[in-house]
C-alpha cells in the first residue's frame, strides 16, 4: 500500500544551529499539509546535511480519501405539504443544488429531527496531482529564527535554495518556486562531486548520494562514522594511551559541518601545554572545532583531531593547514592569558563597573554587590534549617559573590565566552584565593543547561540561587517577562536552576522574602518608574513555582498533588517538595480516600459562609464532642509535626481524624432546628477543614470516586 515520496530542498551551506529547527519544521508542516489534503501515509522521516533538508514520506497513499459532505435544507415538516408534495422551500433548495427534489433524501440530524438534504461525495484525487501544491506550500511555510533573502527574489529561508528534488516513487512532482523548478536532480559533495546526480527512483537516493555524491545524508550515520574513526584511533593506533575529549556540543556541530567525515590527527608545539588544561581545551575547540586529546595522566597532549569534510587527506595538505591554524590560535590564546596575568581582581572589579548588567539596572559590579547582600540574607534565612550545624560559610560567600563576575572582563572570557566561570576559578586559584571561593566562582554558573551538573557546595548553591533570582527579579522589574515561546534572557531555565539548587541544598525558605528583599535592593539604587514591588514579588515567586510545576510534570509527577499543596499558599520550594513526597507516598502505600472523602464532606457543608468560634457548651451530641476534642488534641500535635517537616506523620494524624469526621457526619445532623447549634456545628466543621488545610487542600486531589 502506498509509495514513497522523496522531497529534498537543496541549499547553500546551512548553519548547524538551524538544522534541528529546519527538520522539525519540515516534518510538522508536511504532516499537516498531507493530513489537510486527506492523504494517508505511514511515516515521515527527515534528514539534514549541510546542503539539504530531506523528507521521505513512507507509504503515501496514491489516492486522496474521498470526502462526504452533507448539505441540509428545510426540515421535513416544511419541505413537504400535507399531501406529501414538495413545498416551494423544498424546490428552492433543490434548485440551489442543481437537483430535483426527487434526487434529495431525508437526513436525520441528531437532536433536531429529519431534514431534507443530500449527501455529496467528493471523490479523492490522485496524490501525484496534489503533491506539487503540497510541497510548494510546505517549503514556503517553513520558518527559521534567522532568515534571509537573496538576489532579487521574494522569499525568506535560512540560506539560499539552489535546487528542489521531488519524486513520488519514480515520478517527478513538478512545481515552481522563485527561479527553480522541482525535478529529479540532486547534488553531491561540493568539491568531490560537483556535477548533477539524477535520481530515477526514491529508493536510489541514499545509495546514489553516497556512492556518486560522496554525501552521507543521515546525520546519525555521520556521527556514528566519526565516533568509529575516533575509537579506531584510540584503540588501534594509540593503544589506549590517548583519549579524545568528546564534547557533545562540539560533536553535534562537527557532524553538521560535514557531508562526509574524515578524521585526521594533527599536532601542535609542546610550548603551549603550559596553559591551564580547561583553557587550552577550549582554545582547541572553540574557533576551529577540533577535538582535544588527553594523555594517560589526563593532561592535554599535543595531538588534536580534525574532522575534514571529505574522504581522505590525499596530500597531507589538510593536516598541515589545520596545524598551522591551530598554532596561531593557541598563540593568540596565550597572548590573552599573558595579558590577563598582568592584572588582578581589583582591576577587574573596577572594570565590572563599566559593564552594564541591564539598561536601567546598573552595572555588573552593582549586581555583584547585590549578590553579596542577597547571599547573606539567604544564609540568615537558612539558619534555622538547611545550614544548621554546618560551618559558617559567610566570609567565603562574601568573597565569592564579589569575585564571581570578574572574569567577564578578562581577555580570555571576552575571546572565549564559554570559559566564563572556568577562567574565574582558574585565576582565583592563581591569585591565591581559597579553593572554596575559587570553586564557587565556577559553580555559581551551574546548571548551565537542562541536565547539567549542579553546584556541589553550599557556597556554590547559594550564589547560584541568588544570581538567578537577582536576574529574574531584575528582568521582571524591567518588564522583560517571558511570554509564549519568547524568553530571550532564558529566565525559565534560570528559574529551573533556582528550583534544582534549592532542592539539592534542601534549603527551606519562603521565596517571597528573598525576592522582596531583592526588589528592595533594586529600588534603593535604581528607581524604575511605576514599580509595584509587591506585585512583582508575587509574580516572580509564581514564575519560579511554575517552573517547579513544569519540572514535576516533565518527570511525570501528579500535578493535582502539587495544586493541593499550593492552594493554601505555600511558598517554599523545599517545603512543597517534602509535602509532595509525603502525599505521593501516602497515596501509594495507604488509602488517601480516608482523608479525601471526609474533606469533601466537610467542604460540601460549609460552602463560603462566615465562620465564628466553636462554643463548647453548645456541643450536645457525643460525636460532635468527640470531633471537637479530636481536633483540639491534634491541632498542636500537627503544628509541631509541620514545623519538623514530618509530613508523613501529619498525614497519619489526618487519616485518623477522618474516622472521627465520618462518624460525626453519620451520627449527627448538622442542620439542626436550633440555629445556634447548627451554626456551631458548621463552625466545628470549618475547624476541621482548617486543620486539613495546614497540610494541603485535599479536595483538589483527583481520586477514584468508587
Amino acid at each position, binding site marked *: 500500500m502506498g509509495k514513497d515520496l522523496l522531497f529534498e530542498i537543496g541549499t547553500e551551506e546551512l548553519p548547524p544551529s538551524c538544522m534541528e529547527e529546519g527538520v522539525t519544521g519540515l516534518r510538522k508542516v508536511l504532516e499537516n499539509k498531507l493530513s489537510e489534503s486527506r492523504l494517508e501515509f505511514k511515516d515521515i522521516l527527515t534528514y539534514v546535511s549541510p546542503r539539504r533538508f530531506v523528507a521521505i514520506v513512507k507509504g503515501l497513499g496514491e489516492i486522496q480519501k474521498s470526502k462526504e459532505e452533507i448539505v441540509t435544507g428545510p426540515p421535513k415538516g416544511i419541505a413537504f405539504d400535507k399531501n406529501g408534495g414538495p413545498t416551494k422551500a423544498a424546490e428552492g433548495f433543490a434548485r440551489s443544488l442543481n437537483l430535483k427534489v426527487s434526487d434529495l433524501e431525508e437526513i436525520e440530524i441528531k437532536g433536531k429531527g429529519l431534514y431534507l438534504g443530500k449527501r455529496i461525495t467528493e471523490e479523492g484525487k490522485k496524490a501525484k496531482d496534489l503533491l506539487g501544491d503540497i510541497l510548494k506550500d510546505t517549503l514556503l511555510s517553513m520558518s527559521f529564527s534567522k532568515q534571509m533573502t537573496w538576489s532579487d527574489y521574494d522569499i525568506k529561508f535560512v540560506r539560499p535554495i539552489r535546487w528542489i528534488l521531488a519524486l513520488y516513487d519514480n515520478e517527478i512532482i513538478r512545481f515552481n518556486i522563485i527561479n527553480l523548478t522541482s525535478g529529479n536532480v540532486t547534488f553531491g559533495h561540493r568539491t568531490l562531486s560537483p556535477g548533477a546526480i539524477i535520481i530515477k527512483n526514491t529508493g536510489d537516493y541514499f545509495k546514489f548520494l553516497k556512492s556518486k555524491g560522496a554525501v552521507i545524508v543521515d546525520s546519525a550515520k555521520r556521527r556514528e562514522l566519526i565516533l568509529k574513526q575516533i575509537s579506531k584511533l584510540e584503540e588501534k593506533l594509540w593503544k589506549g594511551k590517548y583519549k579524545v575529549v568528546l564534547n557533545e556540543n562540539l560533536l553535534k556541530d562537527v557532524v553538521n559541518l560535514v557531508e562526509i567525515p574524515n578524521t585526521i590527527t594533527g599536532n601542535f608545539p609542546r610550548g603551549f601545554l603550559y596553559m591551564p588544561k580547561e583553557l587550552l581545551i577550549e582554545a582547541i575547540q572553540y574557533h576551529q572545532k577540533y577535538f582535544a586529546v588527553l594523555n594517560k595522566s589526563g593532561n592535554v597532549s599535543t595531538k588534536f583531531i580534525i574532522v575534514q569534510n571529505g574522504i581522505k587527506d590525499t596530500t597531507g595538505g589538510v593536516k598541515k593547514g589545520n596545524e598551522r591554524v591551530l598554532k*596561531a590560535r593557541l598563540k593568540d590564546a596565550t597572548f590573552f592569558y599573558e595579558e590577563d596575568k598582568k592584572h588582578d581582581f581589583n582591576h577587574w572589579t573596577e572594570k565590572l563597573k563599566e559593564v552594564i548588567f541591564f539598561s536601567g539596572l546598573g552595572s555588573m559590579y552593582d549586581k555583584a554587590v547585590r549578590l553579596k547582600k542577597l547571599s547573606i540574607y539567604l544564609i540568615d534565612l537558612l539558619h534555622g534549617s538547611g545550614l544548621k550545624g554546618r560551618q559558617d560559610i559567610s566570609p567565603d560567600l562574601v568573597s565569592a559573590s564579589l569575585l564571581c563576575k570578574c572574569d567577564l572582563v578578562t581577555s580570555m572570557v571576552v575571546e572565549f565566552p564559554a570559559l566564563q566561570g572556568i577562567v574565574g576559578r582558574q585565576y582565583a586559584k592563581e591569585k591565591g584565593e581559597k579553593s572554596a571561593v575559587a570553586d564557587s566562582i565556577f559553580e555559581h554558573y551551574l546548571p548551565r543547561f537542562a541536565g547539567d551538573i549542579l553546584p556541589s557546595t553550599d557556597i556554590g548553591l547559594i550564589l547560584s540561587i541568588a544570581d538567578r533570582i537577582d536576574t529574574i527579579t531584575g528582568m521582571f522589574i524591567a518588564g522583560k517577562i517571558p511570554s509564549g515561546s519568547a524568553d530571550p534572557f532564558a529566565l525559565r531555565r534560570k528559574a529551573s536552576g533556582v528550583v534544582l539548587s534549592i532542592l539539592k541544598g534542601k534549603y527551606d525558605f519562603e521565596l517571597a522574602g528573598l525576592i522582596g528583599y531583592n526588589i528592595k535592593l533594586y529600588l534603593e539604587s535604581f528607581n524604575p518608574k511605576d514599580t509595584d514591588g509587591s506585585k512583582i514579588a508575587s509574580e516572580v515567586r509564581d514564575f519560579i513555582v511554575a517552573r517547579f510545576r513544569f519540572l514535576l510534570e516533565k518527570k511525570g509527577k501528579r500535578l493535582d498533588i502539587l495544586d493541593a499543596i499550593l492552594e493554601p499558599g505555600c511558598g517554599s520550594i523545599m517545603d512543597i517538595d517534602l509535602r509532595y513526597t509525603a502525599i505521593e507516598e501516602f497515596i501509594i502505600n495507604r488509602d488517601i480516600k480516608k482523608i479525601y472523602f471526609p474533606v469533601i464532606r466537610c467542604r460540601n457543608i460549609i460552602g463560603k459562609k462566615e465562620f465564628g468560634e466553636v462554643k463548647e457548651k453548645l456541643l450536645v451530641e457525643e460525636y460532635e464532642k468527640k470531633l471537637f476534642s479530636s481536633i483540639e488534641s491534634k491541632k498542636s500535635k500537627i503544628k509541631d509535626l509541620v514545623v519538623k517537616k514530618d509530613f508523613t506523620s501529619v498525614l497519619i494524624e489526618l487519616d485518623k481524624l477522618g474516622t472521627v469526621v465520618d462518624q460525626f457526619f453519620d451520627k449527627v445532623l448538622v442542620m439542626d432546628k436550633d440555629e445556634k447549634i447548627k451554626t456551631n456545628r458548621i463552625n466545628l466543621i470549618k475547624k476541621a477543614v482548617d486543620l486539613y488545610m495546614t497540610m494541603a487542600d485535599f479536595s483538589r486531589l483527583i481520586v477514584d470516586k468508587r
Partner: protein
Amino acid sequence: MNFQGIIFNLQKYWAKNNCIIKQPMDLEKGAGTFNPDTFLRCLGPEPWNVAYVEPSRRPTDGRYGQNPFRTQFFYQFQVLLKPSPDNVIDLYLGSLKNLGIDLISHDIRFVEDDWQSPTIGAAGLGWEVWADGMEVTQFTYFQQMGGFPLKPVSAEITYGLERIAMYLQDKDSFWDLSWSDSISYGDLHLESEKQWSVYNFEVASIDMLLDLFEKYEKEFRKVMKKGLVFVGCEYVLKCSHVFNLLDAREAISVAERTSYISRVRDLAKVLCSAYLEQREKMGYPLLKKDKK
C-alpha cells in the same frame, strides 16, 4: 604565486566575470565594506558588480608583529555582486581554483558566520570560508545597510589576501610571504606594524581623538545639509576610525561604547537615506544602463 600575483589573478578573474575593477579608497577604514563602492552602492535597485583591493585597519587587532596572522593592518580583496547571482558560490570556488588551489585535495568549508557592523547599521548572513581550517574569505549576503533593508541583495566576497597567500605559498606567517620575487611582506610591513601597534595601544592622543570625533561628526552634519553625500561618507568613516583608535586605547568605557556606536550608526543612517534619495532623484542611472 606571490602576493602581487594573487591580486593580479583575482582582478583578472573578476574582470572576466563582469566586475569593474576599482582601486582602493584613500582613507583609513576597517574593511572593504566601508568603501562607498560597497557601503553606498549596495543600497537601492541599481545593479553593481565591482572588485577592488582594500587596505584595512583594525587598531585593536595589532599584536606588535608578534602574531603570525593577526595584525592591525592588512589587505582585503573585495567583490560585491548585486544582485547576488544564483551561481555565486561556484563563481567564488572558480576563483580559488584559478589561484591554483586544488579543491579536491583540500578541505574547503563554509562555516556559518553572520556578519554585523553595528557602527554602520549593517547586517548580513553568510559564512567564513575555511581552507584547511584557515579562514580565507568572508562571504556575506547583505540584508541591511544603514538600517535599511536591501533589495536586491548583494553578495559580498571578502578575501583575506595574506591568508590566501600563506596558504598558496605554504608559509606560517604573514611576514614570510613573498610580495614579489625579491621583496617579502615583512620587508614592506613588519616595521610599520610594530610602530602602529605602539601608536594604537600606547601613544595615540586620547584628547585629540575625542576632539576629532566631535569635529568630524559636526562636519558631517554640515556637508549633509548641502547634500554632499560622498563627502559625508568620508566623515562617517573618519568617525568610525577614530572610534576604533579610542577603543584600542581603552579610552571608552563599556557604557560609552554603546553610545559612540549609536552615534556613528545615526550618521550612517542619515547618509544611506540621503544616498537612496539622491539616486532616486537621478532616476537610477545604472539601472538604465543595465537595460540597454
